[in-house]
């Protein structure tokens, strides 16, 4: 199985990310699906797509559960079955794995995978509370630990053990906003300076407003098929050659180390082995920068640099758009936005564009192999996918 295509992405689509007033999640999902359908004219979505796997985190935003059949049918996928996959911020990364398994099992020839979240109709304190439901109720939520709070607990240790600085974390924000300014789908298409990041108001010390990803409305979709059917359907396809997913303890306090996200590290090892590639073979990567510290820890967990060196790595310029390992060319969760359920497949959407040479002003030259790193909660779920251009 090593290095062989597991399943093939024949198209990907994204809704505009941002504050999308007056639309429901289902409408955002249809928008993302339409943009994916437009890329594959040979596909008759209602007839050819046999199942849909849709990531969505919370029913609290729209007072709506059982959301997958709504989203799928609004996208014209009907009466094919639709399933919602919920793994917090790794919902659609996990949904992608389900889609891959569905294709590899032979049950379906073509499936749709995606994700959606409509978050901005609630005020920030409520959103903070809804997001916190993905942490432990009796031990974390009860103790007032928000998501910025949980990642701040990791940042404090990273600073203490490795000397990582607030400036190094800010450098992640500056880089990702620079990329996001080039992405017409991004929520905040605006560069920010190091000074603006450092002077932004505290959210959970040491994390400031600009260390945090955005509360965003958005949806993402990818269409998967069997590798041997791809050519018939599309000229622009990308193979998935590695998939990994792992768990860590749900609560932070149970972990041996707070400077690594073990679930992501384990998932990466699984995906690298399956894909038969090494970290240095990756040309472009989308990392789960829900908070700037998460991207720094991500570099280390994925083997882009040694443990503890993530802060220095971002300072070196390696993960810049023109660097040796461009990370978050889309702008990441930081600037493109983080509609939590949509994030996993939105990362795949960016890699699809990069590996089919359609990333426009963000295009990484000769990008052949891409990696997506998607975290759920404070890292109880880690999902890694490795993609290869055709």
């Amino acid at each position: 199985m090593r290095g062989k295509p597991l399943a093939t992405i024949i198209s990907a689509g994204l809704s505009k990310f941002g504050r999308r007033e007056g639309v429901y999640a289902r409408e955002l999902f249809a928008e993302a699906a339409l943009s994916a359908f437009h890329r594959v004219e040979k596909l008759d979505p209602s007839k050819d797509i046999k199942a849909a796997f849709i990531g969505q985190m919370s029913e609290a935003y729209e007072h709506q559960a059982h959301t997958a059949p709504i989203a799928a049918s609004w996208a014209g996928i009907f009466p094919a079955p639709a399933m919602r996959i919920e793994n917090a911020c790794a919902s659609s990364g996990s949904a992608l794995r389900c889609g891959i398994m569905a294709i590899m099992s032979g049950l379906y020839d073509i499936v749709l995978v995606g994700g959606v979240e409509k978050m901005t109709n609630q005020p920030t304190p409520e959103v903070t509370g809804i997001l916190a439901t993905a942490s432990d109720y009796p031990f974390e939520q009860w103790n007032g630990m928000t998501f910025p709070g949980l990642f701040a607990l990791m940042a404090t240790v990273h600073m203490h053990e490795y000397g990582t600085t607030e400036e190094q974390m800010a450098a992640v924000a500056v880089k990702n906003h620079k990329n996001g300014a080039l992405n017409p789908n991004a929520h905040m298409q605006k560069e920010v300076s190091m000074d603006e990041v450092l002077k932004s108001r505290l959210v959970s010390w040491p994390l400031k407003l600009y260390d945090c990803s955005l509360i965003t409305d958005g949806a993402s979709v990818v269409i998967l098929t069997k590798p041997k059917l791809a050519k018939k359907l599309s000229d622009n396809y990308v193979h998935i050659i590695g998939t990994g997913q792992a768990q860590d303890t749900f609560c932070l306090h149970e972990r041996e180390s707070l400077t690594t996200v073990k679930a992501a590290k384990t998932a990466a090892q699984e995906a690298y082995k399956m894909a038969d590639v090494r970290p240095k073979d990756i040309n472009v990567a989308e990392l789960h920068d829900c908070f700037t510290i998460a991207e720094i820890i991500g570099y280390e967990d994925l083997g882009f640099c040694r443990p503890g060196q993530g802060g220095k790595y971002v300072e070196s310029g390696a993960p810049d758009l023109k660097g040796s390992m461009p990370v978050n060319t889309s702008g990441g969760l930081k600037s493109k936005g983080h509609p939590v359920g949509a994030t996993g497949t939105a990362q795949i959407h960016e890699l699809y564009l990069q590996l089919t040479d359609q990333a426009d002003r963000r295009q990484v030259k000769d990008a052949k192999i891409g990696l997506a790193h998607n975290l759920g909660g404070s890292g109880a779920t880690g999902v890694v996918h490795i993609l290869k251009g055709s």
Partner: protein
Amino acid sequence: MVPPRAICSNCRHSRVEWVELSQKGKLVTYTIVHVSPPQFKHMTPYAVGIVEMPEGVKIPSIIRTSRPEDLKIGMQLEADFSPRPQEGGWPNWPRYFFKETG
């Protein structure tokens, strides 16, 4: 194991017993929360952290301190308990918290 549970996640053994923990522990990490859910708004900003007990387990907790700027990794903290919470509402807490040793 904190919280207590029926099966050990590491060895899957289910013959577990209750162990009383010390009152004092060491601060492993902390943060000061400035943006909180509505239920915690009245006490924002507040400090939360993880405390390691001499028995080896770690406990997440609110840290009651009048000087959050003095918190340091490795410092000693002491467990304390609030009276039993009133009925209803969330969060009806805390059952425990940590404070500076005095």
